[in-house]
Each structure stands twice: as structure tokens, then as C-alpha cells.
């Protein structure tokens, strides 16, 4: 397995746990990782930006993937820490997309967008817009939808993201519509 860490610049690069612990092949795909993204071995914590300052308040600025010795050997990669070229926001989006595609099928899901919102209780929630193929809604069954929702909740729980996910389905054509009242 490989750990995907969201990382701050400065003295203290991480707080708490990684976002997820996933198979190495998934981590490579999710983070568009290349061997040349290697930044340090496992005994050294990589730091970015002004390492003399606390910069956590600026939010996550990098994504680092930790591949341990055994996993690296199996995947034919060098063990260590790799910095993804992708923005944390994009990796986060992909991590949300992954369980939805697994449950609903790549033949139905084109991409997923996320935005903050509120649930019916006024608590912070995540509006998850699932952009689907034109005929997907006719092929979608409620069991698969419930499974997608359950997997998404599980992923958010794993990532320590609070709040209810609210699913919203749309085709590209619907998103492009000039909506009236």
C-alpha cells in the first residue's frame, strides 16, 4: 500500500493521518506519479517552501506519496517519498471520483466535481456533481446509487473529511444549458 499525504509548506508539513492508504498502482494513477518525482528516502521528511516558518494556515500546497520498501519492490519502484505534480485540490477530486466510478462504472461517469454546501441540518456538506454520459441515468439502478453513496461516505471518513456528501447528477449538455427560472 502507499500513503497519500496532503502537505503544507514550511516547518510542519503534515498533521494527523494521510488522506488514504491505497495500493501503489492506485496511488501512481491518482497522483500521476513518475519515478522522477522522487524527493527523499523514507528516513527523511521532505519540507517545502520556507522551512523555518509554520505555514499550515495557507492550506495544503503539495501532495506526497509514501511508498514503503516491500510495496516498492513489488511495484518495481524505489522506496521513498514522491511529490506529485498535481495540486492537492485535483488529487482530492480524484480521490472522491474513484469510489464513485468503481460503484457506478466508467461507462456512466465522465468526471466528478466537488463544491462545499450545507445539508438539510445546516451542517457543512459536500455537493458532489457526477457528470454522466447522456444515457447513463436510464441505466442507473438505485442499488448501485446506494452503493456509490456508501463508498463515498467511507472514502470521506477515511480522509477525515467531515460532512455529508450530497450527490447531484448532470450530463455535459445539462451543465452547458443556459438555465432560466
Amino acid at each position, binding site marked *: 500500500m502507499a500513503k497519500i499525504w496532503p502537505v503544507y509548506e514550511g516547518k510542519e508539513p503534515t498533521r494527523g493521518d494521510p488522506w488514504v492508504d491505497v495500493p501503489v498502482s492506485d496511488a501512481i494513477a491518482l497522483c500521476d506519479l513518475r519515478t522522477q518525482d522522487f524527493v527523499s528516502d523514507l528516513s527523511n521528511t521532505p519540507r517545502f517552501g520556507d522551512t523555518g516558518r509554520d505555514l499550515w494556515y495557507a492550506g495544503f500546497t503539495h501532495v506526497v506519496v509514501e511508498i514503503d520498501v516491500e510495496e516498492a519492490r513489488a511495484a518495481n519502484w524505489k522506496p521513498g517519498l514522491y511529490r506529485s505534480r498535481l495540486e492537492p485540490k485535483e488529487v482530492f477530486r480524484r480521490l472522491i471520483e474513484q469510489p464513485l466510478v468503481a460503484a457506478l462504472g466508467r461507462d456512466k461517469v465522465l468526471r466528478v466535481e466537488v463544491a462545499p*454546501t*450545507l*445539508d*438539510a*441540518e445546516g451542517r457543512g*456538506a459536500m*455537493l458532489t456533481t457526477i457528470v*454522466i454520459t447522456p444515457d*447513463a*441515468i436510464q441505466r*442507473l439502478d*438505485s442499488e448501485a*446509487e*446506494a452503493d456509490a*453513496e*456508501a463508498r463515498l461516505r467511507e472514502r470521506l471518513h477515511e480522509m477525515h473529511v467531515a460532512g*455529508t456528501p*450530497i*450527490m*447531484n*447528477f*448532470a*450530463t455535459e449538455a*445539462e*451543465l452547458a*444549458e*443556459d*438555465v*432560466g*427560472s
Partner: protein
Amino acid sequence: MSVPDPDHLLDQADRLIASTGGGTARQVDLRRAISSAYYALFHAVVTEATDDLVGRAHRQTPRYMLAYRSVDHRTLRRLCEDIAKQNLPNRYSRFAPEGGFGPDLQFFARALTDLQDSRYLADYDPLFRATRSNASRIVKRGRDALGRFRDANRTLRRAFLTLVVFQPRQVHQDQET
């Protein structure tokens, strides 16, 4: 008292979604369709709970109305959130069926929570963009959930309906005697 028929609410939602044919649907129609789908589930629960408690024969009485209006969206949601969890919170331990509420009611509970959140966005959030795809899947999920609710084991359903009307007190364990 003429209680709203859940199937009619879902039919109304279908009509609203179809009302603009193949063209761009009006936001107000799609939003109202989403809202109706949620209310179909809400009224299905409240009607059956009140029928159980007061009696179907008394639907025209103030007592029926009093019981009907006692159920609010927040209470129902919280119960549904709890039922959807793998492990029920302790406060239900004496009132829940031994093996839990079963897959039909869990399916219903998850759908109700989803539809309530969607209804909240549809009714109140000006940034929310309703689509025909989403409204259609919400109505479908509502219809499936209503079917699962009706198919659920009667004993489990009655246990659920009892908790809709009567919520267990939050008592500390050391105070329970």
C-alpha cells in the same frame, strides 16, 4: 383530513420533469419535482405512523392532525441517519428489533436522508443547479425507497414508526435503573 398520497406526489414529480418535453427544463419545475419526491417519503412515514397510533378511521379528527403534525423533518432525519449506521446508537438498544431494522428500512433511511438534503438545496439554495438527470434519479430513488418501505417486514416497520413518533430519552447509563 385528506392525507397527501405519496404515489401522487411521485406522479406529480414525473409530470413536472416531463413538462418541458425535450427542451431546457425550468428550474422551478425540476426543483419542485425534487421536493415532491422527498415529501412522498415524508408523508408515507407520517401517515403510516399516525394510522398506527390514532387509527385510519380517525383521519378526520383533530387528534389525528395533532399526531400527524408532531413529526418533524429533523427528528425523522436523525432517526434515519442512525438506522443507516452499521451499529445503532445505544439509546435504541431497548426499542430496536434484535437483528436491526433490516436492509429494506436501511435502504429507505438512506434514501430519505439523500432526498431531504436534495430537497433542501432545491427549495432554498440559489446556487444549486437542478438538472433533469438528477431530478429523474431522485424520483426513481424515491419510488424504489417507497417500495422497499412498503415491502419491509411489518414488525420492523412498526418498530421504526414507533421511534418516529417517540424518541428515547438520552439517559446516562448510571442513571438508568
